[in-house]
């Protein structure tokens, strides 16, 4: 029920031209991964509807969509920031019972009206905002991905973080994760164009944020969103493992305190094509060819496991040495 659908048969004048989104990824605060049944209960964030779920090859549960009221500005690279009014759509995605994502998006309809309309108008168009002033779609894409943030500008990352925070309060979560991780943010923007072949571009910024832009027909938008969620999760996995490895080498830390939870929480999860929509495989493949994220993961994991081997050997040698003294 909660999988995003392409904007549905809107009238010509109300067709969104740009869709903006953010995926926030972090660790669910539990000591052990949530079993599928518990995860389905935890992610039923609205009464009356259940979460969607998959068992193979990695368990994944997707919450129903929640909606957030918006009346704010959109960042642009040039000229006046357009004001938009409507609702953002957001959902929680839990993978392998442990990796939690807040995925928020909003479809932007340009030139819709000259003033704020009665709320019923926006409530009937969920997940959409309408811009009051004129704006250029390409400028909105750039502005959202690279614009400066501000207190009056759309902040979908916050929306995603809020959805994630809902999972802190559910009884299934014991709030005792043993691994320290940071949340990662990915921003994406899609320029909807019915007449073009889909075309994507991924940038890893110096701020550590992945930014994905795409030109796509609206029917492929749901798959594109899922692609972004897959990428965000794997970007997070990679940083979480690397950070744990870095911490393990720091003076004054017991290496195994960092490495053990990292291996047991994260070691088995990497599988980018597991839930990658069929229609997005070409994009992932092209990304792999150049960015080689899977190689980077394998190499990091090998270093971690080598370190475990070396620590084990050292421990054995120390024990033997003690016995021989």
């Amino acid at each position, binding site marked *: *029920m*909660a999988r995003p*659908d392409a904007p*549905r048969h809107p009238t010509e004048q109300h067709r969104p031209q740009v869709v903006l989104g953010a995926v926030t990824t972090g660790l669910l605060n539990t000591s052990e991964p949530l079993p599928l049944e518990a995860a389905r209960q935890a992610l*039923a964030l*609205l*009464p*009356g*509807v*259940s979460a*969607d*779920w*998959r*068992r193979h090859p990695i368990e994944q549960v997707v919450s*129903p969509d*929640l*909606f*957030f*009221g*918006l*009346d*704010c500005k959109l960042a642009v690279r040039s000229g006046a920031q357009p*004001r938009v009014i409507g*609702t*953002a759509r957001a959902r929680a995605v839990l993978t392998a019972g442990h990796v939690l994502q807040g995925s*928020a998006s*909003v479809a932007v309809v340009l030139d819709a009206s000259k003033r*704020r*309309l009665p*709320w*019923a*108008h926006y*409530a*009937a*168009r*969920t997940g959409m905002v309408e811009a009051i002033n004129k704006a250029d779609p390409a400028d909105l894409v750039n502005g959202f991905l690279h614009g400066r943030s501000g*207190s*009056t*500008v759309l*902040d979908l990352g*916050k*929306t995603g*973080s*809020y959805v994630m925070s809902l999972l802190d309060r559910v009884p299934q979560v014991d709030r005792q994760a043993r691994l320290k991780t940071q949340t990662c943010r990915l921003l994406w923007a899609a320029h909807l164009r019915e007449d073009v072949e889909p*075309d*994507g*571009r*991924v*940038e*890893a910024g*110096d701020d550590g944020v992945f930014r994905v832009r795409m030109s796509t027909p609206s029917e492929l938008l749901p798959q594109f969103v899922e692609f972004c969620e897959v990428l965000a999760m794997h970007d997070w996995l990679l940083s979480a493992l690397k950070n744990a490895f870095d911490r393990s080498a720091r003076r004054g830390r017991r290496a195994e305190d960092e490495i053990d939870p990292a291996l047991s929480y994260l070691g088995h999860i990497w599988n980018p094509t597991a839930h990658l929509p*069929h229609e997005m*495989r*070409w994009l992932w*493949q*092209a*990304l792999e*060819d*150049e*960015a080689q994220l899977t190689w980077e993961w394998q190499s990091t994991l090998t270093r971690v496991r080598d370190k475990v081997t070396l620590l084990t050997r050292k421990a054995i040698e120390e024990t033997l040495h003690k016995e021989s003294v």
Partner: protein
Amino acid sequence: MTAVTPTRASSTPARVFSERNQGTTVQNLPLSHLSIEVGHFYMDDLENGEAPIRRQFERVKPWLDAAMATVVCGEEKPRISTCFLIDDYFQRWPDASEIMEKLLRLARESGVAIDYVARESSCARRLDGFGVAELVARRILEEPEPENSTGGRPPTAHTGWLSNGRPPREATVLNVMEAHDWEAASEYGKRNHSIFLDVELWKDRAEPGADEEEVLSQRLYSCPFLAAVWQLVRLGLLRKDGAPALEVTDWDGHWRDEWSQFPDIVKVNPQAKPFYAYRSLSIMPQHFLGIEHAVRTIIDHVLLDQPVVESLLLRAQDKKIILPSAVADRISHHFLEGGQ
């Protein structure tokens, strides 16, 4: 900074595996074109004398006929059902069978056929204990404050109040000599001037610190809130696990005395057209106008499940029936003149 610009692969192999466990599948309901609510009484009115009840039904009758004659039904033969909501939430006595007998008889004698009877209490909590009102309460989205809502604000109403704008503000006046500092209320979606409305949705009566279950079991919903639930139920928009949140039961031939044993919605006319409908009309005395204004405000702020909304829109489109996208536009009223 690294950048990747791929080109689209020309062909992709066919799929052999798929797994999609949809948490909820939306049921397709049988639908009438119009659901007409034929009058409304407070429980006091139902307890006392027959004449006022008969008089209201007699005044409903011509408007009921007019509504039946003008129903929007595309290219189909019109399907219309009538219903009546029993006001049993705020007060009730164990005389359900007496009241039902009287009500149905007076309606029949006035030429108003009642197809379905529902209870207001069921709009709060079903006979089986399920909290129907919470389906609506948890889907209420407060209207975003102009130019100041960037997406980080929690979406639900926690206070039990819902408004269509910003209330008037009275600043604390430190110096008595200063002019009184007052700012008028403002309706967010106003056209030139405001009609500010603040609606009480419920009262929480549980002790502070009580757990959620306790809070909900003690919660007293307001009349407009339950009426909003009632409208959404009639429009087939309120669902639990894809099925209607309140389901129809056939009448088994005799009435219980206790309202608490009374079905959520009971079909009293075996030949009736479906209860749920694309649109609804409520015919009621004029003094309910304030409540219905509040109902509309509530419904304007309920964000319904997209698959449900979608399934109704597709059905309507299929049958060439015009269905407004704003839910409140599917609801209409006729208020009977006052002073009678």
